[in-house]
């Protein structure tokens, strides 16, 4: 299962490094599959519920969502992430740094409590961080969606590796929420593309409080 964790980490690295959106989507899809498989390794006893969970997970995260996003991608006609706030090389370096940080954190945590699978936990943290990183540094709304998905995966992985498992009911609910969230984002991508005919999230700044009218100030300073 450590191999899975490693793979997860590598996908994140590639995500950070890749400029082509299609590749990124594929990566995320692949992550979905890995994530679906992960529970089987974490929990020793595999019930029907677990399998069910796994199937839905894979189904949603690695088939449905990627398909939707790809569609949105082609709709918008953008192929690659152009000049992110932090370049790809730098991003990979940052990724390495984040990996180190996650490692450090897990190291500290181990002092307070025994952790079933520290390696996965590291991967989880790393995915979490790199998701945040993508959200912050990438211009395209699509990439942000991906970033969010990675973030969620990270949280999920962390949850798994902390061994904090709730009943299937809750797990399913969480999964559903995430799915619908991403789905909505996908839908909105279409709308964004239609309204703005671009999907550059950083060009959304019509709503801000930079503009101030000086009208009232007279009354105030009277």
């Amino acid at each position, binding site marked *: 299962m450590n191999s899975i964790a490693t793979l997860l980490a590598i996908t994140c690295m590639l995500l950070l490094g890749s400029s082509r959106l299609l590749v990124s989507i594929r990566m995320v899809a692949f992550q979905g599959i890995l994530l679906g498989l992960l529970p089987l390794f974490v929990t020793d006893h595999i019930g029907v519920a677990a399998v069910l969970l796994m199937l839905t997970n894979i189904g949603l995260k690695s088939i449905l969502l990627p398909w939707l996003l790809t569609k949105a991608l082609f709709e918008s006609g953008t192929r690659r992430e152009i000049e992110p706030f932090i370049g790809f090389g730098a991003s990979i370096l940052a990724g390495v740094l984040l990996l180190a940080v996650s490692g450090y954190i897990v190291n500290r945590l181990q002092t307070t409590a025994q952790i079933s699978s520290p390696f996965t936990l590291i991967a989880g943290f790393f995915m979490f961080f790199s998701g945040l990183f993508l959200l912050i540094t990438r211009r395209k709304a699509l990439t942000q969606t991906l970033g*969010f998905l990675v973030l969620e995966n990270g*949280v999920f992985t962390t*949850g798994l590796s902390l061994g*904090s498992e*709730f009943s299937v009911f809750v797990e399913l*609910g969480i999964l559903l*929420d995430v799915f619908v*969230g991403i789905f909505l984002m996908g839908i909105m991508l279409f709308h964004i593309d239609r309204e*703005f005919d671009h999907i550059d999230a950083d060009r959304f700044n019509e709503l801000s409080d930079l503009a101030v009218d000086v009208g009232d100030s007279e009354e105030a300073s009277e």
Partner: protein
Amino acid sequence: MNTAYALIILPVITGIISLFISSERLRRNLLVVVAFVHLFMSIMLCTGAAGELNGSWIGLDHLGRLFLMIVSLLFAGSAIYSMEYLDKHPHFDGPAIAGLRMPGNSNAVFVACMQLFLAAMSLSVMSTHLGLQWIGIEATTLASTPLIYYHRNKRSLEAAWKYMILCSVGIALALMGVFFLAMAASSHVQQFTPVGLALFSGYLKIEWLKVAFIFFLVGYGTKMGLAPMHTWLPDAHSEAPSPVSAMLSGALLNCAFLGLLRIYQVCAAVPGVASFASELLIIFGLISLAISGVFILRQPDYKRMLAYSSVEHMGILALGVGLGGSAIAAALLHAVGHSLVKSSLFLLSGNILAVYASKKIEDIKGLLKTMPVSGALWLAGFFAITGTPPFTTFTSEFAIVRVALQSHSWTIAILYLLFLLLVFIGMLTAFMHMSLGKKGEVEVDGSAGESFWQVLPPVVFLTAALFLGLYLPDFMRSAINGAAVLLGGKPL
């Protein structure tokens, strides 16, 4: 018990149904009917007519009661209001929207999402299991995003996108927090509920609990609109249709607040962590107050101003809870008062927007002359929201100052009053400019925004706020005090 489930299931079903209803009229009536059925049932629940319930999944303690009542009541108000609101096609500001008519189905989406929204909020309020609560709160985000995007224009889309992303990220953090909490809870803990955790507070791992609390604070804090994570709030509240803004500000923020309270409930039970949590809450409360003060001063857009005032009041809530003691009860009372007043203000802003077709404060003059009822309510709402006696907001704010001084933290009290003053001056300037004065050069007919159904909810809410300021009914007193005790505070 079944009533409780019904509260959640019913809106979901009707919501999905209303997607497929072709008749506009029927759909809206359904909305109102559902709203009132929901209100009726929740009253039954809260008065205990439907029996006490404290399951490990769904339950209703004093906190839940309080917030469920708020949600249900506000929803009923907004539902009534939206009946007419959906009829109007207010031509909105900005060229992007000129001559835009909403596609017919958007109303269906609106109605459906409203009901799903209600369901989600009810879930988040009534779920005792923290994971379940997380699901509920995330669901509220999902259900409300289409509502914010109701107007189908650039601005609303941008607002919706920001809302979606930021809140999702926040919520993800909260989920992280849930996992950490689960980690903190050792195997002794049978049920993953605040009470269950508090029972075994001795066994909780303090380190993990603290980390969990931080994640909850940042996560649910984002959703609740605590500065500096509040940035989505003004956009969403100002772009959403008014009944939705009312719900967002009046009910949704409270749901997120409740999420925070639940973890605080756990922390309060653990000696070392309680002070830690309180400190953080106080800090964030003060930051929110300061930020809102900065942005309310010279704010050109009145809906944004109201949004920032929501940030301010969330700050007050956090501060009150952080101060502990009877301030917790005061904060809860304040939550009620704020919901009533703020929702009515947002509804009124809808009326104004419908008449003046502008969100700019400077475009609006002489409300009292053009639309007497709304204008008067608008001013009354101003005095209520700034905590002027005898409105209930004053009672809570005053009680909070008292507690602050009881714990000899003069700096907190003085800063608190200073920021309130800042907010007051900012809002006063705006509200005076809007309400008083001549009609203004643009000729408008106020009757457009003055229909009975659009004035009724604000009237009711503001009257309630006034009444609560003068007299606190026993069931509310008991609910608030009970909730306060749950959170380790003293009764009012």
